[in-house]
């Protein structure tokens, strides 16, 4: 029946129907394929760059090559901060199958303790699976040989080279050198992450922090092609890292060590500056600490011990310690007085043992109860008459006095190239109003005349002011960076001193008047530090200072034996030498050590001797370095041994 239905006519109409449908289908096919093709145009033309980027991101891996950190030397080329090459055994969790068993067999092979294993496992948990974790540090050649022979048994473990910062002189100059430590979250916020991708350590304090950029260098990288499984295929390109610059500090290590030795029984600081160019020759702060402890993360116990030590060894007294400067500022005060016209070189003041503001019964006492009688500027300095300077400050008035003292750098940061310098305080009446919402009393002014009251200064400020005095008003910014060296084969580049605006005086002889007073302090018959000046092979100028820590009531006298050590007076001394052609200016403080003439001046004398009478110049650099290292090792061989074991 169905066949009968098929007529000739329906055959033709069916053909026409098919053809019509075929046309429609062809049109739809073209439309659909056009849609796909538009998508291809979109991918391959419009988004070409985007996808090329993604493709490269896929298969090109930038592997950072960290630069070698620059070394730090003293001015004579003695190494202060070195890079120690060590061999470590490490593994990535991802590369090792059956970690526990492998560790057990490694324990039998190498001197690895259970503790090491536990530490290692803990680090594995914390770190990413692709990050290598160190199992054993400081591998000896023998250990490396043993491991290499058995290497096939421990796929995934490998010995690699690491550079570690080491401070060969340990606690010497630790405050100014500072130290490097592992990069932490706070550092990450500040640094260019690209530059530090392969770097683990960064300067945390001191010179290491101040010159981080120079010391770090520029990271290199290699671009490696990897497949989808992360397996490296071939190297595409490489850019070698640029090693960090070597830094030469203006420090004279011999002087530095001497200063630290002389201060080691006290808490205190000493700063020596070459007044001609502002180079800091020594900067000691005692007690000090061993920066090596910080390099690989200090232990809690060690850190707590340092932090909770009442002597605060981590604190750089030389630039952060704000002390009452006491009489050490009298020469600068004297110059300010002369320059402002309230005093004259010839005018005398009558010292009756105390000073009273007209109309006030309060007695500002002189250290010499009997009084100095009629006293001139010269004697006021070398005998350190308090009354003279009470009078001077009172006559000038706080704001004029303060302004004049600012010119010597008091109350302002010296701009030394170290982080965290303090400005201490050269008070003004506005300051007191702001700080305490109180009026400035004339009595406040009187105290500042002898470097007490609200007046504080840091040792570096005192040294800087002394250097300025030695220079007769020419100011040079103190600095530690002496020279830099891009590579061992290139000559060092010396750092130019930065000159600051000089202090102008109405009469040039004022400088001589003040300096004469200071020379008399050490060389004069009645000088407060005449004992320290005796027998010197050069002429020097100095000023003692004994700063009161504890306020003595009006009717009492200072009796050291009855006071706690913490409340004893600070001993200070400032000096420069030789007087004719000053090459060194220094300031030092021994906390709670008593009188400046008794404690501080002898130390200063020894330091001047050390620097000026040095025979070291005849030794070659290498010999000097070796000698210092030997001396260091001889001092505590036990400690050194322990350290290398711990590392």
């Amino acid at each position, binding site marked *: 029946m169905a066949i009968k*239905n098929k007529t000739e006519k329906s055959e033709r109409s069916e053909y026409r129907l098919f053809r019509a*449908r075929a046309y429609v289908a062809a049109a739809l096919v073209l439309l659909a394929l056009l849609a796909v093709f538009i998508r291809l145009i979109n991918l391959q033309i419009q988004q070409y760059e985007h996808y090329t980027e993604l493709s490269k991101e896929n*298969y090109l891996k930038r592997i950072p090559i960290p630069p070698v950190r620059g070394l730090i030397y003293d001015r004579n080329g003695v190494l202060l901060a070195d890079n120690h090459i060590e061999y470590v055994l490490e593994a990535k969790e991802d590369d090792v199958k059956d970690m526990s068993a492998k560790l057990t067999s490694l324990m039998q092979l190498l001197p690895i303790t259970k503790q090491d294993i536990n530490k290692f496992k803990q680090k594995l948990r914390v770190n990413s699976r692709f990050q290598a974790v160190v199992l054993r540090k400081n591998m000896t050649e023998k250990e490396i040989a043993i491991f290499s022979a058995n290497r096939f048994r421990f796929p995934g473990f490998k010995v690699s080279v690491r550079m570690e910062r080491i401070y060969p002189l340990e606690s010497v100059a630790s405050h100014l050198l500072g130290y490097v430590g592992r990069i932490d979250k706070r550092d990450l916020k500040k640094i260019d992450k690209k530059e530090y991708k392969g770097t683990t350590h960064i300067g945390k304090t001191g010179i290491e922090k101040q010159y981080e950029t120079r010391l770090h260098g520029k990271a290199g990288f290699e671009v490696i092609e990897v497949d989808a499984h992360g397996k490296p295929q071939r190297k595409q390109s490489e850019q070698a890292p640029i090693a960090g610059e070597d830094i030469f500090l203006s420090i004279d290590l011999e002087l530095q060590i001497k200063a630290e030795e002389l201060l080691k029984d006290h808490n205190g600081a000493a700063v020596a500056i070459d007044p001609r160019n502002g180079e800091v020759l020594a900067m000691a702060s005692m007690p000090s600490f061993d920066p090596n402890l910080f390099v690989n993360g200090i232990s809690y116990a060690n850190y707590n011990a340092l932090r909770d030590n009442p002597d605060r060894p981590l604190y750089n007294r030389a630039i952060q310690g704000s002390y009452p400067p006491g009489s050490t500022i009298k020469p600068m005060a004297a110059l300010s007085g002369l320059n402002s016209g309230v005093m004259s070189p010839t005018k005398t003041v009558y010292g009756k043992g105390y000073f009273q503001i007209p109309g006030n019964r309060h007695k500002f006492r002189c250290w010499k109860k009997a009084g100095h009688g009629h006293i001139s500027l010269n004697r006021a300095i070398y005998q350190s008459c308090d009354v003279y300077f009470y009078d001077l400050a009172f006559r000038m008035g706080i704001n004029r006095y303060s302004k004049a003292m600012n010119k010597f750098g008091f109350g302002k940061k010296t701009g030394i190239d170290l982080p965290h310098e303090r400005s201490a305080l050269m008070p003004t009446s506005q300051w007191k109003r702001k700080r305490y919402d109180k009026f400035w009393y004339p009595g406040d002014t009187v105290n500042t005349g002898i470097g007490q009251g609200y007046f504080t200064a840091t040792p570096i400020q005192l040294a800087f002011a002394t250097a300025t005095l030695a220079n007769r008003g020419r100011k040079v910014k103190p600095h530690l960076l002496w020279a830099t060296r891009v590579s061992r084969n290139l000559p060092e580049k010396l750092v130019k001193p930065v000159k600051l605006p000089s202090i102008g005086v109405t009469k040039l002889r004022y400088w001589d008047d003040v300096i004469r007073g200071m020379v008399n302090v050490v060389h004069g018959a009645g000088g407060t530090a005449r004992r320290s000046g005796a027998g010197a092979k050069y002429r020097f100028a100095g000023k003692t200072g004994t700063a009161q820590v504890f306020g003595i009531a009006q009717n009492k006298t200072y009796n050291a034996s009855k006071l706690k050590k913490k409340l004893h007076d600070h001993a200070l001394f400032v000096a420069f030498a030789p007087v004719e052609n000053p090459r060194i200016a220094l300031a030092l403080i021994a906390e709670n050590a008593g009188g400046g003439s008794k404690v501080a001046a002898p130390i200063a004398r020894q330091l001047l001797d050390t620097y000026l009478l040095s025979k070291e110049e005849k030794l070659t650099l290498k010999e000097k370095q070796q000698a210092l290292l030997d001396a260091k090792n001889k001092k505590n061989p036990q400690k050194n041994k322990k350290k290398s074991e711990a590392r």
Partner: protein
Amino acid sequence: MNNKNGFDLSSFLMRLISSIDLVLIVTLILLLSLGSITLFSASGENMKMMNNHTIHLILAAIVMLIASQLSSEMLNRWSIWIYAFGIIVLVLVLIQGSMGKGAQRWLEFGSLRFQPSEVMKLAVPMMVASYFSNKSLPPSFKEVFIAGILVLLPVLLIVKQPDLGTALLVGSAGFFVIYFAGIPWKWLAATLTAGAVAVPLIFKYGMHEYQQQRVLTFLNPEADRLGSGYHIYQSTIAIGSGGVHGKGWLNGDQSRLDFLPERHTDFIFAVFGEEFGLLGNMILFSLYIFIIWRGLYLATKGHDTFARLLGGSLSLTFFIYLFVNTGMVSGILPVVGVPLPLISYGGTSLVTLMAAFGLLMGLRRQKRGYS
């Protein structure tokens, strides 16, 4: 005709050549060559795979030649039996699968592996074309309904395997016959609307979890670029980074370095796009469009209704392969396991496709011996 020597070689060859369509053959050879070159790169210059591919090609050529000798009357008569056989085997596969082997697409006879759903790509359009061949067209509602069931039955069995890609191809092949038979546009529209309504329902109840994931991935491939979006993410990178000129043969970073998964099978188009760029794609699409056009042309030259319906359906099914695969790899269609026709590595699909082209060539011939 010439039976003196029992077998006359020259006349056999003459008949063979006259039965094939030279235009189509040349285009196919061009496309297969391009495909082989691409496969060499996509396989990672794997010679073993290339040898297998050569065997597949020879096998496919033989099957095509044989298929080109079959007349439409013969096929029309066989349709019902092939179809019935196919359905039975599909059921057998499902039973075998339900007996604890999980997803089962293969039936094994000793060392011979046989994928019955592949047969249905030809058997279903043949069956439906055969059903319509003695009806007056355009078909009545009842006829369309029956045809629909003939299509849906194997499709559902294949979906159950589960093999969404093959189900889609088989379903399309059957649907295109109904389309060419002249299903009224109104019904077509109604069916498509019903389909659109059914899609979310199918998504929710009719799909395996991995299939649902594929659809979701398609909708937002970047959401999970290391998980199920990985394929599309990597294939779009490959194509996109190929640019206009391509990275050059054997120089596709995405495929060379193993970032492209399934790069010699379903995702080979990404390799092609990466290495030959937009210009290569233009050539590739031109070849494909030419083949589809030639197929439709041959179909209109079909000897009878059965021949036309089957030819039209086979041509459009070839298009579906192309569209679904390239659409998927370039990220505008969801991931469905459909190979790039004639280029993706795989003997079964190559043989089926070439068999279809063989059939297409033979359709315009009348039954041998007559006229």
